[in-house]
């Protein structure tokens, strides 16, 4: 099968890679970039574990081919914390609120939540629930995740005021 060259910036690093057109963005990130924090929970676009940010938008990387990301900027879970290891407000809130247990779905929640809170800095509880409805967790019963979202939203607002 012929290969295509993809130019993509992943977590700030420019890459040019030759890939088969059928390789998903998720497999590209995991296998080619060795960024294994992006997890595959269903490979049919329902569970949301593989969510990454493509030009800022939360995208299911199992439903996108790597070639479709040509020219895009991609942020994976590995690019969410600061380079010196400080957790983002969303990550810190998940830690504080017991928002993860096995941690397999967590990268998808963190990336989705990061995009959602950027676009909805003042969410209602209902908006938070709706925003998370496309990401599945089997360990937490969503209890800690919902608390974490509230904390992350509130912390961000406090941060803006100060």
């Amino acid at each position, binding site marked *: 099968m012929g290969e295509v060259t993809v130019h993509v910036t992943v977590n700030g690093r420019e890459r040019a890679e030759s890939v*088969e057109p*059928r*390789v998903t963005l998720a497999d590209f990130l*995991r*296998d080619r970039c*060795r*960024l*294994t*924090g*992006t*997890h*595959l*929970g*269903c*490979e*049919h676009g*329902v*569970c949301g*574990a593989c969510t990454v940010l493509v030009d800022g938008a939360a995208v299911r990387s199992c439903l996108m081919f790597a070639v479709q990301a040509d020219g895009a900027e991609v942020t*994976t*879970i*590995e690019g*969410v*914390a600061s380079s010196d*290891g400080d*957790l983002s407000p969303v*990550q810190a809130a*998940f*830690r*504080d609120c*017991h928002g*993860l*247990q*096995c*941690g*397999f*779905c*967590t*990268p998808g929640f*963190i990336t989705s939540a990061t995009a959602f809170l950027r676009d909805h800095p003042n969410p209602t509880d209902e908006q*938070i*629930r*709706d925003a*998370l*409805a*496309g*990401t*599945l*967790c*089997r*360990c*937490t*019963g*969503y*209890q*800690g*995740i*919902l608390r974490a979202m509230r904390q992350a939203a509130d912390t961000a607002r406090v941060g803006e005021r100060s």
Partner: protein
Amino acid sequence: MTATPAGGAARFVGARVNRVEDARLLTGRGTFVDDVSLPGMLHACFVRSPFARAAIQGIDTSAACALPGVRFVFTATDLNPDVREQWHTAVGPASPETPRPPLAEGEARFAGDPVALVIAESRYLAEDAAELVDVDYEPLPAVVDYAEAERAEALVHESHGSNVVGEIAGVPASALDDVFASAEHVVSETIHQQAYAPVPMEGRGLVVDYSGATGELTIYAATQVPHEVRLFCSRLLGVPEHRIRVVMRDTGGGFGQKVMVQRDEMCLMLAAPKVGAPVKWVEDRRENLLAAGKSRQEHAAVTMAFDADGAIEGAYIDFVQDCGAYPTPWPVTTAAAVGMLFPGPYRVPRAGFTCKDVYTNTVGRTAYRGPWQFETLAREVLLDISARRMGIDPVELRRRNLLHRDELPYANPNGMTYDRISPHETFEQALAMLDYDAFRSEQSDARTVGRYLGVGMSNYVEPSTPGYGYYGTEAASIRVEPSGAVNVYVAGGSSGNSIETTVVQLAADALGVKIEDVSTIQGDTAVTGFGAGAAGSRSGSMTAGAVRETAAVLRDRLLAIAAQKLEADVEDIELADSRAHVRGAPSTGISIGELAAVAYFEPGSLPPGVPAGLEASERYAADAPVIWVNATHVCTCEVDAATGQVKLLRYIVSEDCGPMINPAVVEGQIAGGTVQGIGGALYEHLAYDEDGNPIATTFMDYLLPTATEVPVIEYGHIETRSPGPGGHKGVGEGGAIGAPPAVVNAVADALSPFGVTMTRLPLSPSQILALLDQ
């Protein structure tokens, strides 16, 4: 007594300590099995039967083998003859097991049955090649409806001679004839629970890496029990146990599905020595829903007899469960637990049961959080139906029958002796949290305007922490390193149960060190002692015992060295904050690093009898054969009678798990199990059509609860100390036991004006509307 092992001050045990697992998992630095990549690694994909039952007339692998990049296509003739022994330690070699060929041999017995194994240079190529394997199937009549399996002409396993796997009975129904004949009220119903499954977000997976030169096999596994993977594999291949190393750092949930080695995993183990390169198999979601196993799928005719005041006089359960084609492990003893536990935390003077297990041409039964939880579903749903028929409030009916502490220990009529539980207290606490009377008046107000609110409740008593056989011991090794940093080695392994954090909390208190000075190494059979893994709600209690035993040895050494250094009596030395000091004079102290330096580098100056170094390994043997746990679930809901939609409003769990090691972890376990139980009651159905075709093999069809459906869970805690270490009890499984009946009862209560009886799960909108239409 405190909740602290080894006599240290409880600083971290009992606290909502942040988890040590989180830093890696929040930043994408976890290591799940699919994250393991080895040089030259190949990828596996199974060819699976599309038929529920079919004779395999032939398999043509030539086209698949000819595809560039394909290295091997194995069929049953390649792999199956290499099986030496295959049995799980928990059930032993003598168990009358289901024949379990690694690859289907001659006959495929469920849709999803592995028929061939393709090994190729990438997963993409392996999937391409799997499509090219030409299997000549002759479809055969399949046994699909388990309720008819016993009478079916077709046999799932010809060699077994019957579709009945096994049967265990207690006191027979005929022996209770007198109770049921003379009782004021006798209520009978048949209650059904559908097939649903653990569905961890990470499916099953293995990377096998065999070195022909050394005869060593390394396995990276998604598992709840790395040591059993090693032991099983050792028997399977006839490779000595010490030549096999099993590693799991992060497992993406298991909930019972990953406690036993299944046929697919056996295939990878058997293929490893033939391939000459590492091989990875990670199942996709379709495979997980098709072939990783199902749970629940059962029904029972249940009967209870009551006197005129509603006191239970007798209880009987006639239970049948679907085991699919390849149950793992032998399911008959778990089924018996349904019968034995059916009386629950109530005063039941007479009881009996029969429990039958049948084969069908569907995916095999596997363990799932509270594998026997049908007893609670059947009992609690029947209690509500009985209350309605007798005209007694369901709370009042339970109050009259619940066990009180002063009756303990209490032997139920099936010989289960409960002790150190608090069913009355959790029940009253949960009702008080709800304000039951206020809810009833809100409900009656709502009905006047055509809104249907309901309240449901359930009580259970659960055996946790089995203290016998395979499960009965657990080991810990602790090294206070020369710098004073502490490493704790336990079998463990992170599968969502926060066992790393738990170990760090326990060890910090036991040794009197700062929590940041403790680290833990788990999930690697090369460096940890044997352990039976995350199963049976055992990790907390058993690991607490292991850490206590081992830390006590090192604590004694630290105290002896400190006493000599500080020129004081051992009894006067305290260990806290990673320092030793004389009681009342904290400024005179010495750091644990200084003590460690003496232990390692000045062995000649150690007190008499104190060995060099600060390393110890001990194995804890369980104090009790079982640790009983109890809880109450109470929830409220609104049902839309026009659409059949159920909305849960409040959800309260009052649980008695003894002193909590970490309340955040306890509540996380309760919440996760509860929402799995809610899923089973309302949404999830691993359904088959009448020909045995699975029809829920994607997340579009198999509906997991999402953030929009779950209620906020409110927690109440009652604390009764167990006989085990620290008084702790197991808390991993209970949520999934208590939730389904609480939800069913709430929906039934909401719809009680319609006079419907709810006896079938899941309560999907269509199911509810069908009942309302009757």
